[in-house]
């Protein structure tokens, strides 16, 4: 029996080993390295030289604009996304003809899986001087600037992440027990009070999942602010690319990256806590 047990353990170890190795070498070690770098100094010619200083973290306020933009526009973008996503998900889950439901839902998901770079580029095209502003000038409205504004970035965010917001809400609405809605109606509730008293509260876990997912992804966003904000609406991701690939200040960049991960963890934990409270259970999947 013992030999069988040992063999079983060996097989388990062999199955896990490659993945465990990969996770250690390309996730755990890099994080430790980044943490070490964050307490170091920039070498004169760029890059890193060993030191132990908190100076990089003390420098964080010099990038306050990037943090401010990210921490304002990421949740704002997620909220705008929600405003469009909820009615869409509601229609798909509750009102849509079951026969076409799968097709309609697939049509929502497909764009999310196509290149965000290309989809964002499409908006550069539409908002750029040869797009909508050009059309407007034909009817006499001159000098409209849409590209490279916070509004363009928000639009890009809603466009890019809408499918990701719709899906979890759709799933939670679809799981909803129809008998509860009937019961509510039987007890004399108007559709509006059924919605606010039954449907909405029961879909909140999906809403939370969507908002958390989109917000977390947006915290590390680079492409949308770069292409639609034109370097005027900077996110943390843009600051990081700048620090690592242009000014080669690796320690400062590492300090910002460490801070970003800390923010992501805090947002994630807060989201999970709120989700648990709403759902009353611990079974909320954020990933």
């Amino acid at each position, binding site marked *: 029996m013992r030999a069988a047990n040992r063999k079983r353990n060996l097989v388990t170890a062999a199955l896990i080993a490659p993945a465990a190795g990969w996770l250690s070498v390309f996730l755990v070690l890099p994080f430790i390295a980044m943490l070490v770098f964050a307490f170091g100094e920039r070498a004169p010619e760029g890059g890193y030289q060993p030191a132990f200083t908190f100076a990089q973290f003390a420098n964080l306020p010099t990038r306050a604009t990037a943090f401010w933009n990210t921490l304002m526009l990421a949740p704002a973008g997620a909220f705008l996304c929600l405003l469009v996503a909820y009615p869409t998900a509601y229609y798909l889950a509750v009102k849509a003809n079951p026969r076409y439901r799968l097709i309609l839902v697939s049509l929502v998901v497909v764009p999310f*899986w196509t290149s965000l770079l290309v989809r964002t580029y499409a908006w550069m095209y539409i908002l750029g001087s040869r797009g909508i502003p050009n059309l407007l000038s034909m009817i006499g409205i001159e000098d409209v600037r849409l590209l490279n504004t916070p509004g363009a970035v928000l639009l890009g965010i809603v466009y890019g992440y809408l499918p990701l917001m719709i899906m979890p809400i759709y799933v939670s609405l679809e799981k909803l027990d129809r008998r509860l809605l009937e019961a509510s109606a039987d007890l004399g509730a108007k559709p509006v009070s059924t919605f606010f008293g039954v449907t909405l509260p029961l879909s909140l876990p999906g809403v939370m999942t969507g908002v958390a997912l989109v917000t977390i*992804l947006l915290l590390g966003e680079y492409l949308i602010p770069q292409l639609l904000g034109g370097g005027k609406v900077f996110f943390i991701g843009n600051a990081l690319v700048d620090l690592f690939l242009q000014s080669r200040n690796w320690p400062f960049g590492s300090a910002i990256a460490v801070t970003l991960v800390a923010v*992501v963890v805090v947002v994630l934990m807060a989201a999970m806590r709120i989700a648990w409270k709403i759902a009353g259970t611990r079974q909320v999947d954020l990933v």
Partner: protein
Amino acid sequence: MRAFLSAVYLFLYAPIALVVLFSFNAGRNASEFTGFSTAWYGKALSNTFLVAALQNSLIIAFTSAVLAAIFGTMAALGLERLRPRMRALFDALLAAAIVVPGVVIGIATLVALVALFSIVNPALANLWPGERPPQLGLGYGSIIAAHGLFSMALVTMIVKARIASLGRDIVEASSDLYATPLTTFRLIVLPQILPSILAGFLLAFTFSFDDFIIAFFVAGSKTTLPIYVFASIRRGVTPEINAIATMVLAASLLLILSARLLMREKKSKSGE
């Protein structure tokens, strides 16, 4: 309500449609359609930089997706047999690989690899008997490793979910009938999880093929297709980019539809 839904679909697809339409525009002008032409596709495909970037992207996406599918499936099978505490630790690491922003994954990998190279390369130079010692550097390897990390976590999650919904009784029946564990795996388990492994592979391929930000950090001097597209966009909007963008869209669409078909098959089977 219906009008709202239509507006949402219009919002989702109109920009894509516009790019596709203007990729067939005869003229250079981006704001008026002057005639149908496939000239820009010919121009794009005879662009050697573009073709090289495409080749790089395909090699990287294929390799990282294959590795992710194999190691991810092995991990999903192994996780089952792990003690709860170890499993929780492993699950947390997998979740981290998915949740941590791509920007940070890219930076962390870059930082770690450069630190590693600064130790290994001088050592290699000392030990090497010949004149020109090999130099480790950023390139295919670093992108494959960084993409594979996310992809492997993804495959593990998908296959794990499939294994969880697998009937235990049939596996037990198989071993009661004296099948060796390997035979049981080959004849019972593998056929049932194969669609989800393939779906995971295709999602991994799509992710790697579309990823810009991670590759941007760890590519070194290698150029992938998204990096090339990004660089061209910054040089200015041209019809050639519309043609490239359309081809990228078509490729990822094809992949994602295949993945969804496989997942659907999985669903209908488990519904029986």
